[in-house]
């Protein structure tokens, strides 16, 4: 299959997959407590359905989607709701947010699943509803509610290509790779469901060319399944080839228009973990309550690939990995390029957490001394979106956010390539995040002032109109009065005239 290239990227980024890629998926034990942030997806936070003291079973919905762009949350094990309120959440801000806490009872009783005998009997609308109800969001890290991507109602452009993203380009992470190695058949089944749902002609599963075993495992599963529209493709190992837009470009040569979504060019792209979750939801009737997580880095004694209940606190996973080593310096959720450091291991795993990296000081940079930019342009040559980071930096640093916006600041995917190659060690991505939020705030402010201005103008108009109306009315009234006066005068004159005439007649 012909492949295309996106600009730049880092082909020589140290992958660090060997630490964990050989480790088979193990089931992590149910922890004493499960913590569920109400917002663990893009969109509106879920609304709580339970009260403190309620007994819940695994698979029971404890919070429901609020609006279209949202996702419900299900209990990961049986137990009692012990707390509903603010807790530290896994988020770069390090802030607290509302969470539901379940104290588990160790019985791990589950709500009776409702398996589906033949998904082909179900309509697309029913399947989308099932996926929505199962609380499935993008498990590759973005956590966008999957049902929205799949919903074809009201869409004009039919989906031609389904892309399954198995290109795990971030260093250290191997959870998708293990899933494909061990459960390729289930993933293929998930693809079949999606092909039926989307009624599309082609499904491409992409994996990086650094894992030939995985490629073979998928090939075997595809052969066993014997559906000619599903194919597996090796893509070059260049970070960030697993980025949605970069993968779409690599596989199809098409670009997702800025500000639009892949569906606008007839493509749906899903992470393979998400596809596995869809298969579980549709075939086995189980909502999303667990996921596969890589726990790795020099900071843990024994790295693992674990199948974990969503909501498990990080320290419970560290225990499975035989604890911290003395080198543990940073706790990173996600990979070292786009993940974020968290301050405490009390923080729970969420649906989007694909990796816990406990890094030593050799594995992460803890301090960088930034020097002046020398305009070398290395940042632009590695930018997978073809931006000019050096000029964006110049503008965002001098608070010329509008100029940065003109240079397409909002198209930055924060992949971190520019940061890594910068010889002046400037934290570029940090500057861009800051500039982006300033721009968003500006736009919000502008919206508010636009509304205020419109309201003011409307009021001015209304006052002017009323004034004009009043003037018109009084003019009319005056005119009417004048007319009446004139009429009266005329009548009086006529009367006088008549009287006069009468008198003359009399006289004569």
């Amino acid at each position, binding site marked *: 299959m012909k492949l295309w290239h996106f600009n730049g990227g880092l082909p020589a980024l140290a992958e660090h997959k060997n630490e964990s890629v050989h480790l088979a998926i193990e089931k992590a034990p149910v922890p004493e407590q499960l913590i569920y942030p109400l917002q663990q997806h893009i969109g509106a936070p879920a609304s709580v359905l339970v009260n403190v003291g309620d007994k819940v079973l695994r698979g029971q919905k404890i919070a429901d989607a609020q609006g279209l762009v949202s996702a419900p949350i299900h209990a990961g094990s049986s137990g009692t709701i012990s707390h509903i309120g603010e807790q530290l959440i896994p988020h770069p801000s390090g802030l607290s947010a509302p969470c539901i806490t379940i104290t588990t009872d160790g019985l791990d009783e589950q709500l009776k699943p409702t398996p589906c005998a033949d998904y082909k009997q179900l309509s697309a609308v029913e399947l989308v509803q099932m996926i929505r109800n199962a609380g499935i969001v993008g498990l590759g890290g973005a956590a966008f509610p999957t049902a929205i991507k799949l919903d074809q109602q009201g869409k004009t452009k039919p989906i031609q290509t389904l892309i399954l993203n198995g290109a795990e380009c971030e260093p250290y992470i191997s959870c998708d790779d293990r899933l494909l190695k061990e459960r390729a058949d289930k993933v293929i089944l998930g693809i079949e469901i999606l092909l039926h749902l989307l009624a599309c002609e082609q499904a491409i599963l992409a994996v990086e060319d650094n894992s030939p075993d995985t490629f073979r495992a998928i090939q075997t599963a595809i052969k066993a399944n014997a559906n000619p529209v599903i194919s597996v493709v090796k893509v070059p190992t260049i970070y960030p080839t697993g980025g949605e837009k970069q993968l779409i470009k690599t596989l199809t040569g098409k670009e997702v228009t800025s500000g639009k979504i892949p569906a606008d060019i007839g493509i749906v792209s899903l992470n393979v973990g998400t596809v596995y979750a869809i298969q579980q939801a549709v075939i086995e009737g189980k909502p999303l309550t667990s996921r596969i997580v890589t726990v790795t880095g020099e900071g843990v004694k024994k790295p693992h690939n674990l199948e974990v209940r969503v909501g498990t606190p990080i320290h419970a996973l560290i225990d499975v990995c035989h604890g911290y080593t003395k080198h543990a310096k940073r706790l990173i959720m996600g990979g070292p390029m786009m993940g974020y450091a968290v*301050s405490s291991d009390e923080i729970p795993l969420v649906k989007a957490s694909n990796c816990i990296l406990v890094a030593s000081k050799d594995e992460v*940079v*803890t301090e960088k001394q930034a020097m002046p930019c020398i305009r070398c342009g290395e940042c632009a040559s590695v930018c997978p979106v073809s931006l000019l980071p050096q000029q964006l930096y110049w503008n965002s640093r001098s608070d010329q956010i509008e100029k940065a916006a003109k240079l397409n600041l909002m198209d930055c995917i924060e992949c971190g390539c520019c940061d890594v190659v910068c010889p002046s060690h400037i934290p570029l991505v940090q500057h861009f995040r800051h500039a982006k939020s300033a721009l968003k705030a500006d736009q919000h402010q502008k919206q508010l002032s636009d509304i205020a201005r419109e309201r003011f103008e409307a009021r001015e108009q209304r006052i002017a109109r009323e004034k004009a109306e009043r003037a018109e009315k009084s003019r009319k009234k005056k005119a009417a009065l004048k007319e009446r006066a004139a009429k009266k005068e005329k009548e009086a004159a006529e009367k006088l005239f008549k009287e006069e005439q009468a008198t003359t007649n009399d006289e004569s």
Partner: protein
Amino acid sequence: MQFLTSSSPFIAPTNSVQRLMLWVLIALVPGCITMIWQFGYGVLFNIIICVSTAICAEALMLKLRKRAIQPAIADLSAIVTALLLALALPTLAPWWIPFVGTLIAIIIAKHLYGGLGYNPFNPAMVAFAILMVSFPKSMTVWMLPSSLLANDVSLSDMATLVFQQQTDLPYIDSITAATPLDDMKTRLGLSQTTDEIRSASIFSSFAGQGWQWVSVAYLLGGCLLIAKKIISWHIPVGLLSGLFFASLIAYLFEPSISPSPIFHLFSGGAMLGAFFIATDPVTAATTLKGRILYGVLIGLLTYVIRTWGGYPEGIAFAVLLVNMTVPMIDQYTQPRVYGHK
């Protein structure tokens, strides 16, 4: 357990300004050795004076500007500027020429514009141009290449010339000469043809005795920089092809009064300019298309100045003039962003 947090990416940077500058210095070594081989130890005096002055001036300016001295000296950028100037100056220049030149480069052209990263003009070329305009006599007298010297000049004689400016040494005229570019220009002005001119001993090779080998050494150093990805090929290729094609067209139409493209590329500062001076990232265009354009413009302007200008060599003026156009070049050569038309 509690952990400190920081912002992604967490991967350590793979490059540093210091590494870039160090490679530039390494790539200049063949050029330095060839200069010494062809023109004697005079170039060493230039290098020593320029580099030591540059370090002192840099430290002084950083102190005045209340900046950290150590990291800025350690980035080696001042030394690169100093070395480039030292190699561009005549080997027999009196000691105050490299001294004043370096002060101009570091204090005026670099720090008064805001220091590393903020200077719009190439510091070494600013110094070179000011010296050229102010002291044309000292700046145009070069030593003869060693292959044309009747007898060797001793180190002590060289030191005497540089530091005491005793131009009454008995053999002074026998060891100095104009550069091939200069000589070519003067003689063309006297209505000689290129064939007549090239019969002179200084031209008795493909692009001027001595000079051509220095150029070859810079070319090699430049290729090393490209191979090590310290510079990209766009600027050198643009510059050299701009100069090549301009001179080729003239050479094809009027060979009797136009020096060959090879002469243009190898007889003067074209190679040093193309690989080491025009590629200074701070003052060059940053987009890839822009860099090609930037290089071509310098190449064309160099040809124009060499052919019709008042000075025999045009690289320095061409670089400075094109430095001015960089913001505009960058503005109009932005790459197409993913997902945009």
